[in-house]
Structure formats: structure tokens, C-alpha cells
């Protein structure tokens, strides 16, 4: 029988005399890196992703969606000529509980009810399930939706419906601008970006005999889904079970949308009484699931001629799409990072997130910061250009040092590595020498030259863990258990989606307990097994939950050793045999001296920041505007590095996503519908498009976490795009203000030709025919 030690308790019994076997540990374990835990399964095809799971008798599910951006749903008509006896249809009327996808605000329905408002092109209206795909396709053809179209809003600057707004600032902005010798303004726009995990979204719901439902699928946050199922299907904690299948990438895209698919699959499965597979194909995934928020960022910056930064006024507008999802938090992170990693005495940053009739935008690696940091860095590079100061030197003067104060009044007491990452990237690339070479080449260039090379630099910061009081509100619990069978295992809800959770958690626990990593098991991400340690988002897994399991392991070690009076590694199996299992639960407690006031938005916005600097080199074809990104060096500080191979993998992958954001990834919209909604038309970098990427890991530990780690997943995403745009400027002499920096935008900037439309804003509906 396993006993449970709740958070904060210690149960110190008198040491029992135990027979302890001689030490069997092999020496020299510290310092060896474990290989990816689930790697062999992934490398042999044994790993089971959702679509690989077999449930005999399962039916196939499908979603009927809106084809208009804004309308009233009048009716859903089933053609009587079709045999509907082999099809299950679910509408809003079949939802037993609340018809909302439970998240921040109760605005997004699971299915639009008849008479209700359709707010975007991909909105779910009803669901079908059939025993085979052919019947399902035929049923879809025999179903018609009647609507009454309403006027639609596509530009966040024209929208009057606000999801959230906030303002942060310090100092005296007017005095700052009065003092400034030079004032530089700039407006920057970025569009949607698709996460493009290679595994499409997928959920399979299995109805249970108790009226409950078990959902297996691809997701980042099993407990988000658990909460959504309980609320809308009126289930108890035990009736709703969510089990993560192997997950083929997330990048934020599987933070909130899986709740929607799980609800859809579960509604069908419960009505049908059989398992239902809801597996999106790429087209549906691209059409309907969340994207990175488009944003418009305006900067007005006051500087002295010697480069001193004296005033920053920044205005951020984000496009939330049709429903709130996580938008207020995305906006908040965007605003908090909008000034860049720079000390400025007089700052005001305002942000607002607006509703449009486009599919809802949501979480994507970086979570609002890549948008605002692209703007901040391009603005900084333009200022350096205008003042005739090298971008490297400007940042040496501006970058945060320990003791500096951020716009929320947060004093950066420790773990500030802005200068370290800057110098590391500059040194590794020999930035100054290359910049001098490209400058000379540009000045000596003959008209008619075809190819130009450029080098660019950008830096950034990324708050680790949830914003503000987020971690305190979540109050996640993680456990380390010694089972009755004498097995040590880690219990958390943190999902593995490629980043390495299942590898670093055993590594951290093994280090505390004196075991080999492979002697520590990881419990499945199954809500009936593991506690709610919070979502797998916000670069919080290694820092926050990693810290919890270290503390739990220490308590487990102390408990066992108090009884056995021998080192844990030598005595835990005997302890389990003689005393049964023991589970230690560890709940999040605020980091020391970290305080944030949600009401005034002041204080410590994050317990610690990661710091990054990227240097990119590009070639630009001056005739076509085509950019080739040749190489990118990214120096990233994420505190103490737990596993260098996995950490480098995060930096390399995040950097390429940023390069894609900078150069080719763009979604065009017409009438609020994504136009390039297939992989043939939404392009991400291939191995030939990808630059050679070098990751430099800088370690500036955070004392609040027992292992000194900070987050790393999102950090590299913040700096790659502005570095590429700076390199394009270095090659061509033109600044690109809108992402992506496509050949069309570059040529327009070089020749003065009309620029393409603003990224992220839909074209209106094409004129309708006379019919």
C-alpha cells in the first residue's frame, strides 16, 4: 500500500533496523547524458501516435464547418433522400453541459446552436460519425447549412470589439522625449504563422460503461481537456479520463485546440456508444486550428546622439481572431517583452487585443513575444543605423545589467546574461569584421550587381514560466513515488512532444537519489494516474516542474534514509519491500522575493528571464528579391543546462521556425478564410532552405530553481527573425517592416514599387455573381 506525503509534510519515523544489501551502484554516473527515453520507439516505428491506436469497432468522425466569416445559423438540413440510419449526427442540442470550450472566457461554443452566431470561416456547426470513410463522405454531401450573412471585420485596427488591453510603464515619458536629441518612429506588422507540427491534430474518444469517456490523443495539456470534458459533458473527475498519445510536435498549437477536438469526439462517442476517431487531415488542421497572432506594433523612441536610450513609447495591437482563447495572456507577454532587453528610464507600452472574423489565434512558441521583439529589434537596428553606431555597440550600451529595472518595476537582481549572449554570438561570428566587409561591399557595389551578402544581429529576452502570478494561480503538483514494487517513478502531467521531458525528468530525479536515469520511470500522462502539474507551455517544464520533482525527490530520499539509515540508492528497494510504497507530492510555492500585482501590472513579471542573441548571414538576389539565409548563430542563456543535446535541439529548431517566420511563412486570407490551407501552399523551410544553425549555450543559473534552470523552448524563436531582417538590410540597404520579408516586399522596398498588403489582414469577399 502506497502512502502519500502531501505537500509540505514530513513524516520522520524512527530508523528501523534494516538489512541493507551491499551497494550495487556503478560509479561515475554523474555527467553522462541519458539518451532520449522514447527515442528507440520513435526510431523503429513502435511509438504510438493517436492515429496509430486501434480501437475495434471505432467509427470515423467529421466536423461540419461554417463557410462564412460572420453569419446567423438558421438551420442544418439533412437530405431525406440519404440513408441516415448508419450515421450519427450531433448538434449543439446534444451537449448536456455548458456549450463552451472551457478556457479563459466562456465565448467559444463547442458547436454553434441553430439561431446562434457564426463568427469565423472554420467554425464548427455540427458533427457526423459513420462506420467507414465512404459513408462519412457521402453523409457530408447530403447535409446543408442555411445561414444569414452578417458584415465581417478583418482588420484589428478597424475592430471595435476588444478582448483585453493593458499598459505598463515607468519614468516620465514626456520629459524623456523632451530630453531626446533624436526621435525615431516605426510601424511593424506581422501576420499569422502556423505551428505546423508534422502530426495533425487527432483525438479518439472511447465511451465508458459508467457514462464517462476516455480520450486518447495528441496534446500538450491533458488537464485542460479534462476540465473541458467535465464541464460540458457533466462528468465527474473519474468519469473523464484523458490520456496523451505520443505527440508529433505541438509548439503551442496543441495547447488549447485539442480540447475542442476531444469534446467533439466525446460527444459523438457518447451518442453512438462506440469509440470515435477524430483525426484531422492537413487541410482541416490548417483551416481550423489556431495560429500565431498577427500584430501591429508602433514604436516611438527617443535617443541622444551618443546613443543613450531615453524614451520608449510602444503601442501593440494584436488580432485575436473570433474568440478569446488565450489572447489576453499572449498580449500580456507581448507587451511585457515589447521594449526589448534594454534599460530605459522613461517607457510606456500599451497593448490591446481585438476581435476579427477570422479563426481564433492562440498559442505558438514565443506567445506574443516574437511579434513584439521583432519590432523592438528592428527599431533598435534602425536607430543604430540612423546614429551611425554599430548595432553591436548600441546593444552593449543598452542591454540590461543586474540591478536594472524593467517597465513593470521589476529589479533584475540576478541571472541577467544579456551582455554574455551578445558577446558570445558576436565573437563566434566575428560580427564586427564581417559587418565591415559587407558594408564595404555594399558601398563598392556597381549597379547591375546581382548578389549581395549581409550580416545582422538581434537580441532578446524571454520570461521563463507563466506571466505574473500565473504559477501561483496554477499551483501545480508533481510527485515522485517509490512504488510497492520498489520502482521509482515521476508523476507529472508534463507531456513529451519532442522537447525531451521524458528524458530530463528521470535525469533530474536520478541525480537526487543517486540512481541511474534508467532506474527512474515516467508515469504516463493519463489524468487518472498523474496529478495536475499544470500545462506543458510557457517554457515552464524544465524550470518549474523540474524544480518540483527535485524537491519531491529530496523529500523522498530523506524519508527513506531516515528509516533505513543508508543511502537511498542502496536501501530503497528494501524499504519498499518492508514498508510499502511512498509517494511525495510537491506543490508549487512562489519563488523567494518574486511578487507581482495583477491589478496594477507592476512587480516581477517573471521569476527569471532567458537571454538570447542571434547573428544571421544572408544572400539577397537583387534582381528577384530572393533571400537565402546562409547561417545563423544563436547564443542562448537558459540558466543551468540539464541536457546539452536536447537544449541545442531546442535552439536549432526554434531558430529555424524564426527563419521561416522571417522569410517564407505567411497566410493569405480572402473573406476571412485562409487561402493557403494546404502543405503545398503553406511553406515551411526544408533542409535546403534551412541555414546552417549553430547553438551556443550560455549558463547563468537562476537561484530560485533548485537546479538553476530557466526555460529554453521559446527563447530562440524571439531573435531569429529580426536578425534575418537586419542582415537583409545590411545586404540591400532597405528596412523591411512587415514579416515575412518576401521577395515582393524586398523588391518593393528597393524599387519603390507598390508593396503587398499588410500581413495577416484578409482581402474582402470576391464580388458575388448575379445569381
Amino acid at each position: 500500500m502506497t502512502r502519500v506525503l502531501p505537500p509540505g509534510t514530513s513524516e520522520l519515523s524512527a530508523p528501523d533496523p534494516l538489512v541493507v544489501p551491499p551497494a550495487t551502484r556503478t560509479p561515475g554516473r554523474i555527467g553522462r547524458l541519458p539518451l532520449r527515453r522514447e527515442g528507440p520507439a520513435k526510431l523503429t516505428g513502435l511509438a504510438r501516435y493517436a492515429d496509430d491506436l486501434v480501437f475495434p469497432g471505432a467509427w470515423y468522425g467529421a466536423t461540419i464547418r461554417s463557410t462564412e466569416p460572420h453569419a446567423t445559423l438558421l438551420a442544418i438540413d439533412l437530405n431525406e433522400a440519404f440513408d441516415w440510419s448508419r450515421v450519427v449526427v450531433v448538434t449543439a442540442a446534444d451537449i448536456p453541459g455548458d456549450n463552451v470550450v472551457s478556457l479563459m472566457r466562456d465565448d467559444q461554443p463547442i458547436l454553434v446552436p441553430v439561431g446562434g452566431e457564426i463568427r469565423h470561416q472554420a467554425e464548427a456547426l455540427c458533427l457526423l460519425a459513420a462506420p467507414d470513410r465512404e459513408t462519412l463522405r457521402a453523409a457530408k454531401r447530403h447535409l446543408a447549412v442555411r445561414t444569414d450573412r452578417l458584415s465581417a471585420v478583418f482588420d484589428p485596427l478597424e475592430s471595435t470589439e476588444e478582448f483585453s488591453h493593458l499598459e505598463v510603464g515607468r519614468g516620465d515619458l514626456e520629459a524623456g522625449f523632451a530630453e531626446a536629441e533624436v526621435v525615431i518612429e516605426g510601424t511593424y506588422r506581422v501576420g499569422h504563422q502556423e505551428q505546423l507540427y508534422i502530426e495533425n491534430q487527432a483525438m479518439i474518444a472511447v465511451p465508458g460503461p459508467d457514462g464517462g469517456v476516455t480520450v486518447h490523443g495528441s496534446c500538450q495539456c491533458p488537464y485542460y481537456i479534462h476540465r473541458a470534458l467535465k464541464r460540458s459533458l457533466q462528468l465527474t473527475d473519474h468519469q473523464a479520463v484523458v490520456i496523451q498519445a505520443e505527440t508529433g510536435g505541438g509548439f503551442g498549437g496543441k495547447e488549447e485546440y485539442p480540447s475542442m477536438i476531444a469534446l467533439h469526439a466525446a460527444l459523438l462517442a457518447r451518442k453512438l456508444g462506440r469509440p470515435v476517431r477524430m483525426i484531422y487531415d492537413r487541410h482541416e488542421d490548417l483551416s481550423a486550428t489556431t495560429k500565431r497572432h498577427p500584430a501591429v506594433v508602433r514604436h516611438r523612441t527617443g535617443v541622444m546622439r551618443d546613443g543613450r536610450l531615453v524614451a520608449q513609447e510602444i503601442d501593440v495591437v494584436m488580432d485575436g481572431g473570433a474568440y478569446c482563447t488565450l489572447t489576453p495572456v499572449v498580449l500580456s507577454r507581448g507587451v511585457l517583452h515589447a521594449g526589448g532587453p534594454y534599460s530605459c528610464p522613461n517607457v510606456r507600452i500599451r497593448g490591446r487585443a481585438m476581435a476579427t472574423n477570422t479563426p481564433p489565434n492562440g498559442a505558438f512558441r514565443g506567445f506574443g513575444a516574437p511579434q513584439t521583439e521583432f519590432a523592438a529589434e528592428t527599431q533598435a537596428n534602425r536607430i543604430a543605423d540612423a546614429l551611425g553606431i554599430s548595432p553591436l555597440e548600441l546593444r552593449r550600451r543598452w542591454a540590461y545589467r543586474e540591478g536594472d529595472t524593467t517597465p513593470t518595476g521589476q529589479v533584475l537582481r540576478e541571472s541577467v546574461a544579456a551582455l554574455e549572449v551578445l558577446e558570445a554570438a558576436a565573437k563566434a561570428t566575428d560580427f564586427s569584421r564581417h559587418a565591415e566587409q559587407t558594408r564595404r561591399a555594399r558601398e563598392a557595389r556597381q549597379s547591375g550587381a546581382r548578389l549581395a551578402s549581409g550580416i545582422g544581429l538581434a537580441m532578446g529576452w524571454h520570461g521563463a514560466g507563466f506571466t505574473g502570478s500565473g504559477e501561483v494561480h496554477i499551483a501545480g503538483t508533481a510527485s515522485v513515488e517509490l512504488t510497492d514494487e520498489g520502482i521509482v517513478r515521476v508523476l507529472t502531467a508534463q507531456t513529451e512532444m519532442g522537447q525531451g521531458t521524458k528524458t530530463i525528468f528521470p535525469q533530474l530525479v536520478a541525480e537526487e537519489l543517486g540512481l541511474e536515469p534508467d532506474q527512474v520511470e515516467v508515469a504516463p500522462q493519463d489524468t487518472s494516474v498523474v496529478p495536475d502539474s499544470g500545462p506543458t507551455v510557457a517554457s515552464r517544464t524544465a524550470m518549474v516542474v523540474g524544480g518540483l520533482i527535485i524537491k519531491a525527490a529530496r523529500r523522498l530520499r530523506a524519508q527513506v534514509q531516515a528509516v533505513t539509515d543508508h543511502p537511498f540508492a542502496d536501501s530503497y528497494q528494501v524499504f519498499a519491500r518492508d514498508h510499502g510504497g511512498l509517494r511525495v507530492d510537491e506543490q508549487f510555492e512562489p519563488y523567494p522575493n518574486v511578487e507581482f500585482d495583477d491589478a496594477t501590472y507592476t512587480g516581477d513579471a517573471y521569476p527569471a528571464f532567458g537571454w538570447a542573441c542571434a547573428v544571421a548571414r544572408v544572400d539577397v538576389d537583387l534582381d528577384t528579391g530572393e533571400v537565402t539565409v546562409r547561417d545563423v548563430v544563436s547564443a542562448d542563456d537558459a540558466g543551468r543546462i540539464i541536457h546539452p543535446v536536447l537544449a541545442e535541439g531546442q535552439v536549432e529548431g526554434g531558430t529555424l521556425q524564426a527563419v521561416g517566420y522571417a522569410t517564407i511563412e505567411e497566410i493569405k486570407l480572402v473573406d476571412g478564410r485562409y487561402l493557403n490551407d494546404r502543405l503545398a501552399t503553406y511553406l515551411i523551410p526544408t533542409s535546403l532552405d534551412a541555414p546552417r544553425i549553430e547553438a551556443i549555450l550560455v549558463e547563468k543559473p537562476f537561484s530560485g530553481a533548485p537546479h538553476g534552470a530557466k526555460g529554453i523552448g521559446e527563447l530562440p524563436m524571439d531573435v531569429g527573425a529580426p536578425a534575418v531582417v537586419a542582415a537583409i538590410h545590411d545586404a540591400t540597404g532597405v528596412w523591411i517592416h512587415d514579416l515575412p520579408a518576401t521577395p515582393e516586399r524586398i523588391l518593393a522596398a528597393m524599387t519603390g514599387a507598390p508593396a503587398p498588403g499588410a500581413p495577416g489582414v484578409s482581402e474582402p469577399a470576391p464580388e458575388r455573381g448575379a445569381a
Partner: protein
Amino acid sequence: MSYRFFVNGDAVEVDVPGMRRLLDVLREDLALTGTKEGCGEGECGACSVLLDGAVVDACLVPICQVDGTSVRTVEGLGSAEQLNDLQAAFLETGGAQCGICTPGMLMAAEAFLATSAASSEESIRDAIAGNLCRCTGYTKIVEAIARTAAQRQAADPRPA
């Protein structure tokens, strides 16, 4: 209609419509789910398999074209207990993260390693250009393939 071919050396026979995708035959009829579907239109390469040694997208190949051929999938490489050299190199370098592109990536790499003596970075990048990976930035995948190429070259240094 009945089609006979080899999968990973085993003779198989399936009785399915001729236009059924090789991908569905592998995954659903033969329960070989190691081959993944990422886009269904030949853009991502997650379903890459070898057809008589040539890398193809199994989502674009109708089963009628497979009759009489030899198909190799990820299940035909090493086992989890005994990875082959390429799989081991992916594991050690960090070439697999989420793993969904990995089976297809391995097959594209195997085709490259089997036919090419040159293992320059450029030739490796060219060989896997039809296989999208969103996690790694390709850096460690290229490293894993280069390492395997060097090992195989050292073990069998025949000029091609």
C-alpha cells in the same frame, strides 16, 4: 483485386481496390503504423518508404503500382533493442525529437546512403529535402546521416 509484393522481406498479398494508397495498405491492412501520414499530398515526406530501393511518398502510390515490388519501411530497419547504425546515430546526436517525421526521414536517409558515395553536407541536405521536420532545424539530422555515411564508408571503403 489481389496484389502481391514484399514488405521488409516478407511476402504479402492484399485484396484491395487498385487505387488504395500504399500508405493505407501498410498502416491499416498490414498494421505497420511506423509509416506516418503528415499531409496526404506528397509535400511532407512523413510517409516515405523505399519501393525497390527508391524513396517514394506512400500517400501518392496506388497499391496497383506496388504489385511485384519490394517495399521497405521503418519496421525493416533495426529493432528498439538493436538499432541499426543510422537509427543509433539519430538517437545519439538528437536527430529525432517529436519523432513523427523520423521514420520517413530514416528511409530517405537509407536511400541516400545506399546509392551515394558522396556525403557532403549539401548532398545530405539535398537527399532529405522532401522530408519536412519542424522540430530540429535539420542540424542534428544532417549530423546523424553524415556520421553514418562516414562509418559505412570506413567499414566498406569501395568507391561508388
